[in-house]
């Protein structure tokens, strides 16, 4: 009678310990200069855009709230760390949605190099998903960032 309980409390303790360790480690990870490699979400439009190229999970940052109450307008921020000059300049940033009926959300273009890469906008999200941003540099290099969003009230993009 007591043995299963003891076993259970042990595993619960281990779970809490690992959760604690993770909580301690994650701010360190967030502050680390080298981003952790992510798995690219399988979005057909994105796959064809990438055409076999694999962006580096560096420099570009996509900020979205972890929890969005209303999918109709979710604040978004794109930032990219320099230096850009004299190296390759930023040409464009492509934004892809995992579940929206139109996966190509937006393309931000920089015909002349911006003094600072910081773009704010508001996006529509048809449900909880990952959003991917891919930056294209003037030398063809690609950088990517991904953000996970939980959407409580989805934008009724597909009429359902």
């Amino acid at each position, binding site marked *: 009678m007591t043995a299963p309980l003891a076993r259970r409390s042990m595993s619960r303790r281990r779970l809490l310990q690992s959760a604690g360790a993770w909580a301690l480690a994650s701010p360190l990870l967030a502050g680390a200069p080298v981003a952790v490699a992510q798995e690219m979400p399988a979005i057909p439009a994105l796959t064809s855009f990438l055409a076999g190229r694999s962006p580096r999970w560096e420099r570009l940052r996509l900020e979205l709230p972890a929890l969005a109450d209303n999918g*109709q*307008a*979710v604040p978004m921020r794109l930032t990219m760390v320099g230096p850009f000059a004299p190296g390759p300049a930023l040409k464009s940033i492509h*934004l892809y*949605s995992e579940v*929206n*009926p*139109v996966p*190509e*959300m*937006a*393309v*931000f*273009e*920089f*015909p*002349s*190099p*911006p*003094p*600072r*890469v*910081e*773009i*704010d*906008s*508001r*996006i*529509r999200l048809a449900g909880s998903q990952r959003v991917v941003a891919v930056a294209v540099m003037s030398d063809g290099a690609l950088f990517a960032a991904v953000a996970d969003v939980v959407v409580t009230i989805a*934008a*009724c*993009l*597909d*009429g359902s």
Partner: protein
Amino acid sequence: MADSRINVPAAARRDEAIEVRISIRHAMETGYRADESGKPVPRNVIRSFACRYNGDPVFAVRMSSGIAANPYFRFFVTARESGTLDFEWIDDAGTRGTAQAAVKVV
């Protein structure tokens, strides 16, 4: 349509980053919505938005229904010389909108 609100600093120093904020009044109809009578509302979103600084293109957005109604953008432009920022956008219905903001470089 063609209603917008723009916010740029009153003055900037040469080579400084100018913060530009613009919000355009537009429903950004997705085409997936039905009106009260159940008739589908045709898609009509702003397809492209562009910003020029004294005629030179500096920033542009190509967008879909993935951008929220009343599109809002905040971005940075390098202050070069006094002049104007010209904004232009066009939607699926072919309606064009324009706006201007003066830039004073001291």
